[in-house]
């Protein structure tokens, strides 16, 4: 029997969330979202278009999938947009789904890449907010993380890089899905709600590792495994396993 890695399961969950015809965008550190978007194209959603952040690559073939979002292996694509053109696009209604993440994520789906601390007293300096402010103009967004613990899932972020369900007027529908190495969550009345846990993860473990209260419905199932076809495609696009094996 094939072993299915946590990363593969996360990629499948991302892919299943994308609808045919949608335009998807992702920034730095996005091997999983890139793989998920291409997987969606090759399975249920052939009319998905996806843009790999800084490289400007639109619908790269990902043969093979690179680890960096600006890699020149993305240059086999349907178009190489200049970055300012990508940014212009991020402000337009064309973008349906934005992949986002952060050092901290809070109950309202805010993401923080600025740092930990207070204005003028940042104790742990993050890299910076990059494109996350454009979340306010995307259709909806998927938050994904490479870790899930009480340090990154906090009641309230110290700084807002990507706005979740904030009071400001947003053009977007807000965050729609959270995918972590432990589970998949969605939102109910703008509050995070457990949807499914990965094999071997209990509801209790998710609660213990989340720094705020989440909604736990009665019917929390197991995050679906990728199909054989999906696994095969992932393996073909990422033969070295750089993405597939990044979380086991």
């Amino acid at each position, binding site marked *: 029997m094939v072993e299915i890695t946590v990363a593969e399961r996360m990629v499948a969950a991302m892919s299943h969330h994308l609808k045919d015809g949608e335009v998807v965008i992702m920034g730095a550190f996005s091997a999983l979202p890139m793989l998920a978007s291409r997987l969606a194209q090759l399975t249920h959603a052939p009319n998905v278009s996806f843009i790999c952040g800084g490289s400007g690559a639109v619908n790269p073939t990902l043969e093979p999938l690179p680890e960096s979002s600006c890699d020149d292996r993305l240059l086999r694509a349907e178009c190489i947009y200049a970055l300012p053109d990508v940014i212009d696009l991020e402000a337009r209604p064309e973008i349906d789904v934005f992949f986002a993440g952060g050092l901290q994520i809070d109950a309202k789906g805010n993401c923080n890449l600025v740092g930990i601390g207070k204005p003028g007293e940042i104790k742990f300096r993050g890299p910076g907010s990059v494109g996350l402010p454009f979340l306010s103009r995307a259709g909806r967004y998927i938050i994904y993380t490479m870790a899930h613990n009480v340090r990154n899932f906090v009641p309230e972020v110290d700084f807002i890089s990507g706005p979740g369900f904030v009071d400001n007027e947003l053009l*977007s529908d807000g965050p729609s899905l959270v995918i972590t190495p432990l589970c998949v969550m969605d939102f109910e009345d703008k509050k995070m709600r457990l949807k499914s846990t990965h094999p071997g993860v209990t509801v209790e473990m998710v609660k213990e590792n989340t720094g705020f209260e989440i909604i736990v419905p009665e019917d929390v199932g197991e995050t679906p495994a990728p199909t054989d076809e999906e696994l095969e495609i992932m393996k073909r696009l990422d033969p070295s396993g750089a993405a597939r094996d990044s979380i086991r």
Partner: protein
Amino acid sequence: MARKEKVMEAGDAVSKFVKDGCLLAVGGMHMHNNAMAVIREIVRQKKSIGSLTTSPSACTNADMLIGAGLVGEIYCSYVGFEHLGLAPNFRKSAQSGDLKVRECDEAFSVYSLRGGASSLPFHPLPKGLEATSVPKLNPDDYKFTKDPFTGEDVMCVRSLQPDVAVIHCQKADAYGNAIFEGSKFTDFDMIKASDKVIIQVEEVVPTEYILEKTHKVNVPGLLVDAVINVPFGCHPTASHRYYTYDEDHLKEYLKACKEDFSAYLDKYVYGPKTNEDYLEVIGGREKATKLMERDIPW
């Protein structure tokens, strides 16, 4: 009369065009197309950089200048090493307060340069970007004006016209007509916005080549002040379609930042005075071959 060529040594270009206290723009994004040969020369000449601006995602191009203690302040949307981790010198200096961080986002990085490139006094932003902490952390560079057509408040960014831009292109002719063979990132607007432009290239090509490849020529030579011919000059970052980034070296860099960064600078920057010397120190032809030989789809 003969046409004047712009090819020169990195050392001459830096001493001629990079002035102490300047606003410096460095091109490339993440670990790709960082013009490291020229940046190492800036470190060697210990130029003090008044302000530094970068693409939306800076990497070792900014982190090295900061680690060498040369940078007063940075317009910062992101400094990091993508999947390899955070930027240690940037983090340390920002946390200690040695580096002034002008908190920014990608919209600032892009539109401040576009504003500069178009000689606009300021650049408005699309609605909705007010919802983050960034403008609150940086009221000097994000300000509001009235939309004269609707009377609504509109957030704007400061336009930047850097004193000098240091950019990597893959090819240029001797007159500065240059080609990006891969992604252009924000380098194109950086060139347009900046007063002086230093371009480092993998190879200098004849103008006849430029005339044949007009559909690829992105930069007219009239915007370029110096062409620096430094093959493998982006190392340890990648040069699109030429070679990939040196992950081993980048990890060594990140480790050195945490342990003894001055030893790193001694070995890789102050020691080797030229690009050729540097290439020997990092592993010579064997290393170069390894970074060029890879599984590429094009």
